[in-house]
């Protein structure tokens, strides 16, 4: 069926409306959750830091809670602590890379980083068929892939939940401070359909966040938790419990999700392979996924040339925005796409080449990772048990 010019112009308006909806979503969430816009602190960081990192420069980090003191530490080049976990339900994809790029930037600014690999959560949520499989994924796929980002082993501690049973003792200790009602209200009954999930969500994740404040790691300290907006409730819980324990409530920075290849209003999800590009994907698969991706361009070329594209309502352009280091290049592609100078096929070719190169480089670095032990946290957690 031939699409009329009028229908295409309506399609363009829909894309503009989608762009507004995406922009409003982050602003509305910031207000709704009583967070602060990150832009205030960002304006100072980009002045004083030589390299504030992509996530900060390009407003991928959009909100924060209690980050002021930590920002002060960063400016004064003092050490600080970051905790950011990963559910190893699938190989790493571009959405995960947003987080790890941010963690690398923070490490360069002085952060000591704790990365819990939540294989127990994978198993409880049914994303891994067994604890064995979840551990295999963690050690053979996820951890080498994380290390390939270039973390400093002296300032990075990774641990697989199942292999750090002291974590469960800590979770037991903390669980007393979390009521059932709180858990049901925050996480919803439907996400607590087995007792393991209830224990995990209420206490194990809390233990991961609070772990760096144990005496074993120097006691109470400022801790930063970078999260997507869907994880905010965990940080609130941790802040509440820290106050009760006279520890320092962690602060939080929240980053935007990498848009799904199918719908820029949704995030890339490892459980939906058609929405993501895995860092382990072969070049042909990458190009095929990008060719099938949703764009901010209308379907009729002559109308696209007249009205231009809508990069803010596109699944493809944000891949450059979130991952390409060249500011000048991105500005040019943005302008050309928006003006209609380049069409969606040309954009997909440019982004496809970029992603293939990125993934091939990452795979090479991952192949070279031989010794993961120097990254693993082995310290027993006993300070809350010893008498």
């Amino acid at each position, binding site marked *: 069926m031939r699409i009329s010019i009028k229908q295409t112009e309506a399609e363009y308006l829909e894309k503009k409306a989608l762009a507004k909806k995406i922009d409003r979503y982050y602003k509305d969430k910031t207000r709704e959750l009583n967070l602060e816009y990150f832009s*205030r*602190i960002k*304006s*100072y*960081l980009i*002045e*004083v830091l030589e390299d504030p990192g992509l996530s900060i420069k390009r407003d991928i980090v959009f909100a924060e809670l209690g980050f*002021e*003191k930590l*920002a*002060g530490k960063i*400016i*004064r080049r003092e050490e600080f602590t970051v905790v950011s976990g990963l559910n190893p339900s699938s190989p790493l994809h571009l959405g995960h890379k947003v987080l790890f790029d941010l963690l690398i930037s923070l490490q360069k600014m002085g952060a000591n980083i704790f990365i819990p690999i939540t294989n127990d959560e994978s198993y409880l949520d049914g994303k891994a068929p067994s604890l064995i499989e979840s551990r295999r994924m963690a050690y053979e796929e996820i951890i080498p892939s994380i290390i390939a980002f270039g973390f400093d082993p002296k300032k990075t501690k990774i641990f697989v939940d199942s292999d750090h049973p002291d974590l469960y003792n800590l979770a037991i200790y903390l669980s007393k401070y979390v009521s059932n009602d709180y858990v049901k209200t925050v996480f919803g009954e439907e996400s607590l359909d087995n007792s393991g999930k209830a224990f995990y969500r209420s206490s194990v994740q809390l233990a991961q966040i609070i772990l760096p404040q144990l005496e074993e790691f120097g006691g109470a300290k400022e801790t930063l938790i970078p999260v997507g907006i869907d994880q905010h409730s965990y940080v609130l819980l941790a802040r509440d419990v820290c106050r009760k324990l006279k520890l320092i409530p962690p602060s939080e920075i929240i980053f935007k999700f990498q848009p799904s290849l199918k719908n820029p209003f949704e995030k890339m999800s490892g459980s939906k392979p058609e929405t993501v590009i895995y860092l382990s994907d072969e070049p042909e698969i990458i190009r095929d996924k990008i060719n099938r991706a949703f764009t901010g361009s209308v379907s009729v070329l002559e109308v696209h040339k007249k009205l231009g594209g809508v990069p803010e309502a596109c699944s493809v352009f944000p891949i450059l925005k979130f991952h390409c280091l060249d500011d000048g290049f991105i500005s040019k592609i943005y302008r050309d796409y928006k003006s209609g100078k380049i069409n969606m096929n040309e954009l997909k070719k440019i982004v496809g080449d970029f992603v293939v190169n990125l993934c091939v480089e990452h795979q090479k670095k991952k192949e070279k990772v031989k010794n993961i032990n120097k990254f693993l946290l082995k310290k027993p957690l006993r300070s809350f048990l010893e008498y």
Partner: protein
Amino acid sequence: MKDKYLKFNRLLSNRSLIYGFCPSVAEIVRKVKGKKEVKLVYGETYDKYGLTIDSLKYYFFVGLLQKALESEGIAAITEVLIGDLHSVKNDLVVDKEALLKQAEERVRLVTKIKDVYGLNFNVSLMSKILEGEEFRGKLNRAKQVFDGSEKLRSLAYETVLTNRISQEEKKGFEYALEEAVLIGKYDLKIGPPREIYFDKLSRGLGSKLCGIYLKPTYPLGVGAELYIENPEIEKFGVTPYKAGSNKLQDNRIILGVMSFEEMKNLIEKTFVFKDPKLPNPILDLFIISEMAMVFLGKEKLEPGNIKEKTLENLKKFIFEPLDLR
């Protein structure tokens, strides 16, 4: 260059100087244009550290406002009030007597500044008004209105810093009320940004006072973390006429105390943000020196690095003419 300072409309739209108005610039212009004479006031308290260079911004601004009004055929009677009694009202002030005694010295200094720059305002002590019978009568009447009004009480809360709320509650917001009543008899008040809260209280009590607020004063030689961790300082700056505001006396220029070399070092270690929306104390000093230049009748302004130009101007137009050391 003189035009931007000496023409009334241009002065009020000078974005490097002006922070805001109460209730609005349109109301101020309407009020002023209908009159043959306006009464201007600027008041400042002080602390033990001495006269800050930032006070000059206010003296110069009232001087410019006067000249601008006169050029429109409107006479301006201007008072600069030295808040001797209000300077000691804060419970944190330890040696109240010693501080009160500094009031006369302050008047002497401000008078010298007036003479050097040819400024045309009266300098007087606030105590001379606050202790008068007429004022006490007005204050008592205002208290009666205030005590019966939730709205006025909530306006009074806004005048107080968070760490002084319980102090002021116990005193029945005496400080805020005294100021609100005192300024009520004037047409225009000039002050730093936080003064808007006092002016709103004064208008709430029935005065027709309008306010013009100048851009915040920022400390020198501080890191960006000060502003990140203290959004109040970012928004309102420090108190321009009190060097010890927020305990940042080592980051302020105090006339007659700090040498030119010390000032130079402080300016040189001040980070200048590229973003014009971020605090820029160097720009503020530059503007103060520019205004000093206007009053000394020197017009020539040459381009150059802002820190260098500011230092050069401060030396030529403030340090040397005042000769306070």
